[in-house]
């Protein structure tokens, strides 16, 4: 239960970090918050020869709202983003989903970008990035920044499109259009534990408060977050009387969960349906409330 030996690097600038990462290549691993990496090291499930500690790269410690959304730098901790009023006003789903990540003590250290790069299929933020259609910003020595869309970033369990030698410097979460609302729901065996299934939903309403579009993204029911288009089930229906159960059935049919010691595949599929319906209904109510605020 103690980490294996590694060589420790503490770069002070991003170019310095990129130089180290280029040198160590496959043998290197970036240490940011470490809330997923250090357990893996303690349990000797991972044994990188080099750890590159990016906690001294102050330039990556930023949360910035721009016209289109919110850009989260690689050193921004979950807790900082969760409590950043500008950020969660522009992208409410960030605040909604981060509140379900583990516990305060973990959110005080863990980073948003680190969680994305870790690409755990049970983690909330990869699904948030996929649902919103966000982008990862990746840097490497001797090359320009590389931007990868969320849909192309998550490749499998704990596997992302990040290449050896690359550093994820930021994630960009686009703000959903006016008239839209969002919600996050999940079910876990224990408070703060990994979800057996979780669902984020984004619902856009028109001027008459009818559903213009609806979609969801689910976690823990596949190797990567599973996006599901729900508009076919609820499009054009009034926000407070739409057939959310039908939307849930679309999600249940779209996922392909596996049995494990925590839950059967059938139970996870059931949860996918119920949680999608619940999240989508809540997202529609959120959208209606935001439209009401805008009008008032």
């Amino acid at each position, binding site marked *: 239960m103690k980490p294996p030996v590694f060589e420790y690097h503490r770069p002070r600038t991003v170019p310095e970090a990129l130089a180290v990462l280029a040198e160590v290549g496959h043998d290197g691993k970036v240490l940011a918050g470490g809330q997923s990496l*250090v357990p893996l090291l303690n349990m000797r499930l991972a044994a990188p020869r080099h750890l590159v500690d990016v906690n001294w790269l102050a330039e990556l410690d930023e949360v910035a709202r721009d016209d289109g959304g919110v850009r989260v730098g690689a050193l921004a901790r979950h807790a900082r983003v969760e409590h950043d009023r500008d950020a969660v006003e522009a992208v409410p789903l960030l605040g909604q989903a981060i509140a379900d990540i583990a516990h305060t003590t973990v959110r005080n250290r863990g980073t948003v970008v680190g969680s994305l790069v870790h690409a755990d299929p049970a983690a909330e933020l990869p699904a948030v990035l996929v649902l919103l259609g966000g982008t990862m910003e990746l840097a490497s020595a001797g090359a320009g920044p590389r931007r990868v869309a969320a849909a192309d970033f998550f490749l499998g369990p704990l596997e992302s499109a990040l290449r050896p030698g690359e550093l994820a410097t930021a994630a960009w979460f686009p703000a959903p259009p006016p008239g839209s609302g969002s919600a996050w729901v999940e079910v876990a065996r224990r408070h703060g534990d990994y979800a057996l299934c979780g669902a984020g939903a984004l619902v856009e309403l028109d001027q008459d408060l009818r559903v213009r579009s609806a979609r969801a993204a689910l976690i823990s029911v596949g190797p990567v977050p599973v996006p599901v288009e729900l508009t076919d089930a609820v499009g054009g229906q009034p926000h407070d009387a739409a057939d959310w159960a039908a939307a849930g059935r679309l999600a249940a049919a779209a996922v392909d969960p596996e049995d494990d010691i925590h839950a059967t595949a059938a139970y996870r599929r059931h949860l996918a349906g119920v949680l999608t319906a619940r999240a989508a209904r809540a997202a529609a109510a959120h959208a209606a409330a935001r439209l009401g605020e805008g009008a008032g």
Partner: protein
Amino acid sequence: MSETLHETRLVVNGVPHSVRVPARRLLADCLRQDLGLTGTHVGCEHGVCGACTVLVDGRAMRSCLLFAVGVDGAEITTVEGCRSADGGLGPVQQAFQDCHGLQCGFCTPGFVTTITAWLRDHPDPTEEQAREAIGGNLCRCTGYQNIVASVLRAAELTREEPR
């Protein structure tokens, strides 16, 4: 092969320390082994139980998920630093005694540090908030009821404290 040692400075409960540790030395082990502060308990060693929670620059964190070198220069508060100014029990510790908030006591240091930090932002919590506050700490003895009561009592005692 001998491991490289890293000069690491920590201010623990207000006292500056300088230690030479291998990079893989967890903060929890550094506090216990290098500094002799055995109040911080090591339970699961993978971030689940919360027993090793300490405050890093005022924020509650798992000391089993931090490397000592990774918090070089930080101010650390352990359970030993949660006592009152006169050296007696601090308000959270006193509340645990008042409410019988511990039995075996193994998990208690993690609760005390977590609650100490949390009460600064939530001086007048509801019972539901108190329960949420301790959601990241496991206790196998008490059934949590008396710990929730201790959070509420600690809030009372903290509010009564002269500022």
